[in-house]
């Protein structure tokens, strides 16, 4: 059963990680969902697929009033990211969904009206949440051609979508990366295959190196903290991507 873990808290500003679900069916990839709460507003990052909606909803409701959800940030268009959209809208029809402009006309196949979608332009944009200024950071081609990450400069947290994702064995249930060397082995094949552009990867590494990041929270696998964030950026920068095997 999924549970929400508070990974950052400062006054009325919180980050919740709904991460690692050991009881989910084996044929569905495990996903992490994150909720940014500021005052009376909340933003859900990559809410996940239809099949896990009940467990994500109940985990979120245990820690945060779901009527406070103001929007959904969708890093890209994949089904494990956003196919539950219609269900969230069933609960709150006025929710806004932030997504790359590239996918604006594709996502309505999962649900939503024209007014649901807020297209994010290629260079990114600022998303206001209860006085916070969250930044949609471009991560195009990593792996989707219209892809964004979300940076919270106050909490110094970067939600990095599929970048940093690791397909961990069942017994690696920890919320955080504890041993970078061991952990990254489970991320290597994923990044080589899913990340399609070396140039895009270098651009991203440069871009995020300029940010102050205490935590990098990916959509699959464990969370990188402290020095592991820069370790990951260095590792990723040196990794050959866009290859079938090597």
């Amino acid at each position: 059963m999924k549970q929400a873990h508070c990974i950052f808290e400062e006054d009325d500003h919180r980050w919740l990680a709904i991460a690692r679900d050991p009881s989910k069916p084996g044929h569905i990839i495990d996903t992490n969902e994150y909720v940014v709460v500021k005052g009376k507003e909340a933003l859900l990052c990559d809410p996940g697929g239809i099949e896990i909606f009940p467990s994500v909803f109940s985990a979120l409701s245990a820690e945060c009033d779901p009527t406070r959800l103001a929007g959904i940030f969708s890093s890209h268009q994949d089904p494990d990211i956003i196919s539950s959209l219609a269900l969230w809208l069933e609960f709150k029809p006025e929710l806004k969904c932030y997504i790359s402009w590239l996918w604006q006309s594709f996502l309505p196949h999962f649900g939503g009206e024209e007014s649901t979608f807020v297209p994010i332009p290629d260079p990114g944009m600022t998303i206001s949440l209860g006085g916070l200024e969250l930044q949609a950071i471009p991560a195009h081609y990593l792996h989707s051609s219209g892809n964004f990450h979300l940076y919270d400069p106050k909490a110094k947290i970067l939600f990095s979508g599929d970048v940093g994702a690791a397909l961990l064995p069942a017994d690696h249930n920890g919320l955080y990366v504890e041993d970078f060397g061991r952990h990254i082995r489970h991320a290597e094949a994923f990044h080589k295959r899913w990340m399609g552009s070396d140039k895009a990867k270098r651009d991203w590494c440069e871009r995020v190196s300029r940010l102050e990041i205490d935590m990098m929270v990916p959509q699959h696998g464990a969370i990188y903290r402290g020095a592991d964030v820069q370790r990951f950026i260095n590792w990723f920068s040196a990794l050959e991507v866009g290859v079938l095997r090597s």
Partner: protein
Amino acid sequence: MNAPQPNLHVKARGSSELARIVRVNEEIKAIVATAFRINLMALNAIFLAKRAGNAALGFGVLSNELRRFAQDLTRNMSSLRDMTSGSVGSVTGVVQYQRNSAILAEAIRLSGEGVPGAREARRRGAARLSAQQGKLRALDIRLRSAVEETQQLVELGGVLARSAKIEAAYGGTFSPALMQVSTDFAEVIAQIKRSLEILGKERLVKD
């Protein structure tokens, strides 16, 4: 994940509704194909009656009527087909709302009934589902009345086929050939009657 069974149940129910639409469409397609066959058969019968001359004047008139019947039947079936095409959208809507409501209900159950916004979400979902089901019921009534109208038309076709059989008996040397044609007419019309009976029993929405 927690208890996915309720969702699977909804999927199965939804697919049975779509399966009903598919069955209705298949019957309609079968009748349209048969109506096309009657049209061709009637054309052949008209030529045959012409060759038979004065002995098959009555048969010729009936063949013309049967051809007109086939054209009327095709028109009726095409309007029935339009109706069922439209119903696919409504059925899909019902299936989608049922599925979403069931998953949302499961989410609320897991979270505890006191979740803020749960009651409103349920009420909204129920209203949408009921509106969609209302559309489907209205369509079902229209479809049934169109099937009944077509059944009456086919009764007339049956009478024409029987009369053609009687006229065939006066066809002189052409009598066996005319008899064969009129028997074929009767068989094909009986086939349409059976299809319409099946159609008449199908419901787009369960009562």
